[in-house]
Each structure stands twice: as C-alpha cells, then as structure tokens.
C-alpha cells in the first residue's frame, strides 16, 4: 500500500495532465451529440419521409458499428479523399456522431411520451409549432430523458479512452506511456482506473443533482 501511494505521488501529476483533454473531448462531443441528436429526433418524429429515412439509416449505421471502427475510418480512412483531421478533432467527430445516434434514440422515446393533448392545447392558444415544441414539449421530454441521458453521458466519458488509439494524449494514453517508462503497468492502470472512477462518479452525482433540481411532480416518476 505505501508503495502504491508513493508511486501515485510520483506519477499522478503527470497522469492528471490527461484529465483536461479527456474532459474537453467528452464535453465537446456530448454537447455536439446532444444537438445533433435533437435534429435527428426532429427528423424522425416531425420530418417527412425523406428525413425520417435519412435519420433512421444514420442511427442504425452508427449504433450498428463499433465506435473504434468509426474513429479509424474518420482519422485514417477519410484522408484518402483529402479530408484530414488532427487526432483530437477526429476523436471529437467520432464520439459526437456515435453519441448523437444513441441520444436520438433516447430522445425519441421521451418526445413521444409527452402527452399530445398538451401540444394541441399550446397550438389552441395560438402558439406556433416551434413555440409548442420549445416551451411545452422539450422541457418535458428533456426531464424524462435525463436518467437515460446521464447513463449515455457516462458511457461516452469512458469511451473517450479509445481516442488513445489514434494518438490523443488523454488519460489512457498517458497511463500507457508512464507504464512503458516505469514498467509498472499494474500500478499505473490502477491509478488510471481510479481517476476515471472519480470523474464518472462526479458526473453521475452532478446529473443526479440536476435530476432532483428539475423534478416536477407528474412529469417524471422519481
């Protein structure tokens, strides 16, 4: 145990340099994925046949293939057509596109669960469809989706580690690098796991707090 602590004191500062990279990769991708997910949901629920079809194919494609393959394709495959991204950007794009597909799936369920009569009531008092969606549907759909969305956000936080494979210097990459230098993979990956655990549980408790804070009786069943 003391050895584990002294190892940590020595190498943790270097490992922690990966935290801002991991967190920004995650935060950017999950946020962009949120908006893209909303667009996909809109296309599926309100769009015409073309948009419905496009969105459905997209969702099936990204949910049906490994994110690692998607990331390699974007980083290593697209340069053939002259489309070149740096590793961080490629990772952001891959996680965004993948997460959007999952988020859209969750949003769709929650959007469809908002009672239609309330949207009719909103239109009946003169709101535009856009106002009804923004003021009545979304506030309820987002509350209802929050538990599933939190789960997705945490899954994606862990998935940022695969960006290591294309050379993004995040937590896992640093752990691997420190491991090769110290040849103590056991201790450094234990530390890396601990760091991820702190991050995921912080995010989980923040989202849990958000859930309680936005709770409205009758909208979600907590």
């Amino acid at each position, binding site marked *: 145990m003391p050895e584990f602590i002294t190892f940590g004191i020595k190498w943790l500062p270097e490992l922690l340099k990966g935290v801002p990279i991991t967190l920004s990769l995650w935060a950017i991708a999950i946020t962009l994925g949120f908006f893209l997910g909303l667009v996909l949901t809109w296309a599926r629920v309100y769009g015409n046949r073309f948009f419905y079809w496009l969105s459905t194919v997209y969702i099936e494609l990204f949910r049906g293939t490994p994110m690692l393959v998607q990331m390699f394709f974007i980083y290593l495959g697209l340069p053939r057509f002259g489309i070149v991204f740096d590793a961080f950007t490629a990772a952001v794009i891959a996680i965004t596109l993948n997460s959007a597909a999952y988020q859209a799936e969750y949003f769709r369920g929650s959007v469809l669960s908002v*009672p239609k*009569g*309330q949207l*009719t*009531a*909103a*239109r*009946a*008092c*003169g*709101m*535009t469809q856009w*106002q009804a969606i923004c*003021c*009545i549907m979304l*506030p*309820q759909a987002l*509350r209802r989706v929050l538990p599933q969305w939190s789960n997705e956000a945490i899954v994606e936080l862990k998935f940022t580690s695969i960006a290591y494979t294309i050379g993004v210097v995040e937590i896992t990459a640093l752990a691997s690098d420190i491991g090769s230098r110290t040849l103590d993979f056991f201790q450094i990956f234990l530390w890396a796991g601990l760091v991820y655990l702190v991050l995921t549980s912080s995010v989980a408790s923040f989202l849990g707090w958000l859930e309680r804070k936005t709770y*409205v*009786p*009758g*909208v979600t069943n907590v």
Partner: protein
Amino acid sequence: MSESLVLDVRNVTKRYDSLEVLKGISLGLNKGETKVVIGPSGSGKSTLLRCVNHLTKPDAGEIYLEGEAIRDANINAMRARMGFVFQDFNLFSHLNVLDNVRICQMKVKGADKKTATHRAQQELARVGLEEKASAYPAELSGGQQQRVSIARALAMDPVVLLFDEPTSALDPELTGEVVRVMQQLAAEGMTMVVVTHEMSFARQAADEIIFMENGHIVEQGSPDAMFSHSDHERTRAFLNVIADHG
C-alpha cells in the same frame, strides 16, 4: 346581419376517408350568447369545435370571428382570441398553475411578466384557485385542473370560449365546481359554445340548444322548447337517455 356575429360558422364539412363527420354545419353566436351542443357520441361535436379554430382543418366552409375569416395566414392570431377548454384539461405538466395561466399570454400576446402575472392572478381568483398558484397540475384534483384550464383560456381575453365536454372526465362529485364556473361566465356575458351533457347547465345557461346527430344539426331551439316539446322523435329519445343517465 353576419357582421354583428362574434362567431359565424358557415356550412362546414369534414370527412375522414369514407366517413362524413360534418355534413354542412352552420352556427352563429351573438355577443354574450351561450349555445350548448348535445348529441350522441360520434355525432361530430368535437370535430365541429376543433374545426372552429382549425385544430382540425375543415374540408369546406368558412369560419368568421368578429367578421374576419380564419385563414392559415392568421390562424395563430385568431386562435389567441378563441379559448378552448378540453375534456381532459391538457394543462402543461411541467409548469405550475401560475405559469400555465401566464405562458400563452407571454408567448402569444407578448405580455410582459408583470402584466401576465396580474392577469393570471385575476383569472385564478375568478375560478377560486388563487391559493393554488404554485401547485403543479399533478397535485390538483380533476375539477381544479379544469378550472385552471378555464383560467388559462380566460387570461387571453378571448372573444369566444369553446368547451368540449369539460366535465366528462371528472368524477361526478367534481363536476359541480366546474359547472358553477361556466354558469358564472355565461351570466357575466361571455360568448360560449359548450359541448356538454350537463343538462342542468344547458337548461339554466343556454340561449340555444343544438342537437347534433350523424354530422347534421337535427334541431335547435331554446332550452324550453327543446326540453318540453321537441318536435323531433330523435331529440326526445336522446334527451330521455341523458335524463336517465345524468
């Protein structure tokens, strides 16, 4: 003189595939009039109300509000002047009572928060629910929810109110509080079309009762005429059924 009518429904038709739900309905209301629409389930009463504010688009016919025809181009402005009260209330679940009564004023009429709040408090007082302002819909009884939805409609200063079976989803012991609010509105000179089977309300508050069946208006007349000596076998039969059940 159609120009003096607040609401003028002219020859509205609506069909769903092979089913002709409205076969040319005309209906006019002067300011302050209350008309009660009755008729068996499936006769087209809800469709008629929904056609009035184009929640359902009529196939043919015209609807005029204070002499102005309802068009796609002015639909939201026209709806803002017609209150609609639904059978199952349709309050916005994520908003408390005060916000339910404020939101349309602010989003549709552009009222500032202070004005909207003041107006909302007035209307909540009118339906006897000012002390429930911070409650959420799920915390209210059905009768209270329906009264909030009436306040929500009133806060828009509508020129006409449309009620679609406002008491049908309520437990019998809760209908009274809603009917009393409607009676009070009728007495205060609100212009209203009320689809209901509350015969006490019809008798007491209606200027005219309209009996619909199979997408037609079969008969219309004063409550007195309809209840005591209807010429139509169908109307009498229907009123007997209602009297037995209600």
